[in-house]
């Protein structure tokens, strides 16, 4: 079976973003960008399914400006076979991304589409579910384990209070949670090899997808910062403060 993984280029997760002084947006000039951590887990899962013989081909797709190809290369260095770049602006909303991905899915006909559950920039947690809706197919979100069993994909999902298991009819959408796997590091030979793997470049126009804005970002502001309080010397002083000063116990 063919597996498609959709990935996003985001700010490196170790960095703290700054808000622009005119409050129009966050400032990403000269900031280190990386593959979204949950997308990396999605890529790893696809590669493992290929290695174990379940998948015959793995494809990685991303939507955004030219530099996003770096993240396609990263995914291919981890083992994905080829890439698709839908070249357009970087600031598309989830529904529009899902519409573009739906078109790519129609063309490629993968049996399984894996996405990260959430990107660490916009924190929406939407695209996978929206893509499943547009395609009218099954979804297994927040997956901590997936396994193919008799033409069905058994997905263990992280839910509030525990785990849930569901069986999905293929084709299916899976969104990865933290514990699905631990992504490998790309080896130098694989990074070199990834440079020669093919990337097809397309555009929303070529895909025949008309997009419109559903939301408008009016402003972005910095949150109110918490200031540091006091240091206490010992447990007794701490309990005292909590009882008599903060009155929370």
């Amino acid at each position, binding site marked *: 079976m063919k597996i498609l993984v959709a990935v996003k280029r985001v700010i490196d*997760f170790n960095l703290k*973003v700054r*808000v622009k002084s005119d409050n129009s947006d*966050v400032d990403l000039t000269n900031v280190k960008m990386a593959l979204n951590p*949950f997308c990396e887990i999605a890529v790893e899962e696809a590669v493992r399914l290929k290695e174990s013989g379940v998948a015959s081909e793995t494809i990685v797709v991303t939507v955004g400006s030219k530099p996003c190809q770096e993240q396609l290369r990263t995914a291919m260095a981890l083992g994905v076979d080829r890439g698709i770049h839908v070249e357009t602006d970087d600031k598309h909303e*989830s*529904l529009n991304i*899902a519409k573009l991905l739906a078109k790519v899915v129609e063309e490629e006909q993968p049996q399984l589409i894996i996405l990260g*559950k959430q990107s*660490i*920039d*916009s*924190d929406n*947690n939407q695209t*996978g*579910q*929206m893509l499943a*809706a547009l395609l009218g197919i*099954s979804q*297994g*979100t*927040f997956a901590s384990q997936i396994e193919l069993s008799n033409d*069905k994909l058994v997905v263990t999902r*992280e*839910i*509030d*209070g*525990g*785990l*849930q*298991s*569901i*069986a*999905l*009819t293929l084709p299916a959408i899976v969104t990865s949670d*933290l*514990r699905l796997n631990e992504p490998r590091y790309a080896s130098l030979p694989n990074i070199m090899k990834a440079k020669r793997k093919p990337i097809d470049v397309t555009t929303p126009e070529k895909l025949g997808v008309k997009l419109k*804005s*559903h*939301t*408008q*970002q*009016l402003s*972005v*502001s*910095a*949150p109110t910062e*918490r200031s*540091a*309080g*006091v*240091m206490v010397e*010992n*447990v*007794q002083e*701490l*309990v005292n403060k*909590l009882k008599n000063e*903060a009155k*929370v116990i």
Partner: protein
Amino acid sequence: MAILICTEHDNAQLKPETLYAINAAAQLGGELHLLVVGYQCQRVVEQAAQVSGVAKVLVVDINCYQHHLAENLSNVIAEIGAGYCKNNTQYSHIFAAASSHAKNIMPRVAALLDVAQISDITGIESANTFQRPIYAGNAIATVKSLDGIKVITVRTTAFDAAVEQGGQAMIEMLDIVYDLKLSEFIGEDLTISERPELTGAKVIISGGRGMGNGENFTLLENVADKLDGAIGASRAAVDAGFVANDMQIGQTGKIVAPDLYIAVGISGAIQHLAGMKDSKIIVAINKDEEAPIFSVADYGLVGDLFDVLPELAEAL
């Protein structure tokens, strides 16, 4: 125009999260309709009808909705949300609490209606303008919806809960079947705990990588027992395999805001702070006095958690 609020429940009990979504929606001033979709969920319907401020409870009680599978549930919500035929009710908004349940369902509802979802709102400026945290809460975006129907999920820590009693809503049964059979429920493995749920607890004590292993979390339990607290963990502790992921507090885990949050052996990565920095009082216990967690703590204690925790349990 009315506002539709999707309830969360297990067919037996209305989840408290829903009350926050109701109260957030009430700020807009429209007529509030609760939607209960499930199977043999009569008790939930009774609870929903008593919530203060609710005008109507719409009920779809059919066996294909027993396990709240995303494909079936999103279709029925979208159909009702698009315009509920009796009395020509049009909905301006569809609200839900931003729990893992709603995160699974609501984006699917939005896409079926060809509208955006505005996730995890923390503030309401007007009927179409909302505030929501982005970049792990390091920035707050003010977002205007351009859609006719606004699909909204609510960060429960940013709103008060609606009052559970005093209402007398009309109950209306609907017969809408979506038995798509795209997915199938196999089973659930839920943590049975005597402790309060993380998202509703007044006191939370959390452990990080500094705990060393999962067994050492009993040291936290001893303190939690004294305070009727819940136990959480940082992503580092979950990554290291100490505890289950449903205990994770942070950007991609649970967002909490208890009266008292005690962070033990947690350095304070931005991803963790995103999940707890709205707590009323934060206590940090860490042996590294340079740990970033101290910069958000009301009270900091530098010390070895293996000495401090037993002493704390004793002192309480």
